[in-house]
């Protein structure tokens, strides 16, 4: 079985982000970039399936600027076998990414695609679902456990009411939740070995994908500053504030 894992280059989760003064987006100058943490979980799950003998190849794909190659290299250092970089400087929306991934999948024919449920930069949470729809394949989203049984996939999903387990046919699309696994860090020898693993490059234009924008960002703002809390004297005060100030009861 071949597993395809899309990996996105995002602002590192430790970075305190700043909005650009002209409110067009987030300032990326001199900001540390890393692999989207949900995608690290996806890579880890694919590697565990390979180590368990249920997969024989893990392919990492990234879409974006040239430096996305570093994100692929990180996946290769963790243990993925080879990489595909679809290079573009354009701003991409989830539907573009899903269409590009569909074209990659038409070429590669992986039985399983594992994506992060969302990227921590735009928090869209759309690409996996759109990809499943475009391919007409079953999807198991927000996975906290995966089990391959008799050629079908049991996916335990984290939903608001608790855990839901579904069985889906293969080939399938899975998106990872936070508790699926704890990803490994690449060892230094594996980082060095990963330099020799192949990465092929492509562009959306060569693949015939239209990446003209469908959405426009009007404004990006900092969230409002949190106000300091107060102490209330009585239960009556609390109820009054919840009803008349917060408007929640």
């Amino acid at each position, binding site marked *: 079985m071949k597993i395809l894992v899309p990996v996105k280059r995002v602002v590192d989760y430790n970075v305190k982000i700043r909005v650009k003064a002209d409110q067009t987006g987030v300032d990326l100058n001199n900001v540390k970039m*890393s692999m989207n943490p949900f995608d690290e979980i996806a890579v880890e799950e694919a590697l565990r399936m390979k180590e368990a003998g249920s997969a024989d190849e893990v392919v990492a794909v990234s879409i974006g600027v040239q430096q996305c190659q*570093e994100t692929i*290299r*990180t996946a290769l*250092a963790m243990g993925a076998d080879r990489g595909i970089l679809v290079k573009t400087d354009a701003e991409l929306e989830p539907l573009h990414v899903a269409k590009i991934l569909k074209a990659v999948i038409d070429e590669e024919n992986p039985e399983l695609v594992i994506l992060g449920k969302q990227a921590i930069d735009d928090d869209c949470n759309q690409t996996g679902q759109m990809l499943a729809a475009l391919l007409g394949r079953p999807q198991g989203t927000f996975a906290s456990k995966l089990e391959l049984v008799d050629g079908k996939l049991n996916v335990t999903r984290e939903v608001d009411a608790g855990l839901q387990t579904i069985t889906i046919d293969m080939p399938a699309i899975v998106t990872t939740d936070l508790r699926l696994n704890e990803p490994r*860090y*690449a*060892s*230094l*020898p*594996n*980082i*060095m*070995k990963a*330099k020799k693993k192949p990465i092929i490059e492509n562009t959306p234009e060569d693949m015939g994908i239209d990446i003209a924008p469908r959405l426009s960002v009007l404004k990006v703002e900092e969230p409002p500053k949190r106000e300091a809390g107060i102490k209330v004297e009585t239960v009556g005060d609390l109820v009054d504030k919840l009803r008349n100030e917060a408007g929640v009861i």
Partner: protein
Amino acid sequence: MPGEAMQPNETQRQIRDAARAFARRVIAPNAAAWDRDEAAPRTVLREMAAAGLMGVMVSPEYGGAGADFVAYALALEEISAADGGLSNMMAANNSPVAAAIQQHGTPEQKSDYLTRLTSGEWFGCIHLTEPHTGSDAAAIRTRARRVEGGWRLDGHKAFITGGATAELAMIVAVTDPAAGKKGISTFVTPTANPGYKVIARERKLGHRTNDTVQVVFEDMFVPDGDLLGDVGRGLAIALANLSAGRIGVAAQAVGGARAALEAAHAYAGERETFGRPIIEHQAVAFKLAAMATEIEAARQLYLHAAGLRDAGEEAATEASMAKLFASEMAERVASEAIQIHGGAGYLNDFPVEKIYRDVRVYQIYEGTSEVQKIMIARNLDAIVAGN
């Protein structure tokens, strides 16, 4: 020109990031407790080896990563930012011991000892310093006498980092007292030898997560196969990696200082006086700005020296400059970090007092600040001439 690598390349950044991820997950959450216990579990060194941190520059043939010196120094900075004592264990295993076996070892020493050091099965320490001699390394008295099939060692070694933990000892001893510096030889031999005796474990200001011990060799038999390199070349072998060691100390100092800055920056954003976070008081913000600048200057010095090493140069003066500046900078920055914390910084509930204790030694070992100044002063003609 050499030294172009002052900005790390992609592979070097990946290695730094991997070391940082490891340090944050495995070391940083436990460093304060290990400091109080005055010991880190032996398993931590094995985990460091599994991450590839114990043989960063060793060839993959012997289980190493085969990375360059810049990558090694960056990884060392990361481990030091989490804990100074463990960074020194990493440095001991990597730079004098593994590097010397890689450079001078027999095929048997490499396939046996070196492979055990990189895998973490064994830890390696170096025995150079003696109670009466430090920087004056040629004055050592530990004696190795020729006997059938090997050597018999007698002597007293001091300030041995990891000397009680180690399974392998690299020992520098006098084989021919009449030959001076050329009468010194180096051995690599297992510590599981009845003649290898740890006689004292030192109690220290900092670096409490590792053991610093005194060891005596009592009629300790070392077989011929454990001689490292040629007879009489021991001092050259032991000191060949001295510049590398100094660059390593500079990287450790930068790591400690960076951890102090991170703690002070976080505290300054939370602690309020006169109705606002203290970072909004310019007196505090300026301190943080100066600390960040000093750290970056020290990092550039060690990266420059490390880049020169990778380009095949000795970089002795650059290594001394990096070590001198970075180690003294680390004490200043750690002190300022305590100052920003105020009284809280003096308590061991906050990380900065430990960092302050840990960084002090960087001005001492691998050549004191004064020794670095001697080295730099000897080269002033060339420095002033702009070479």
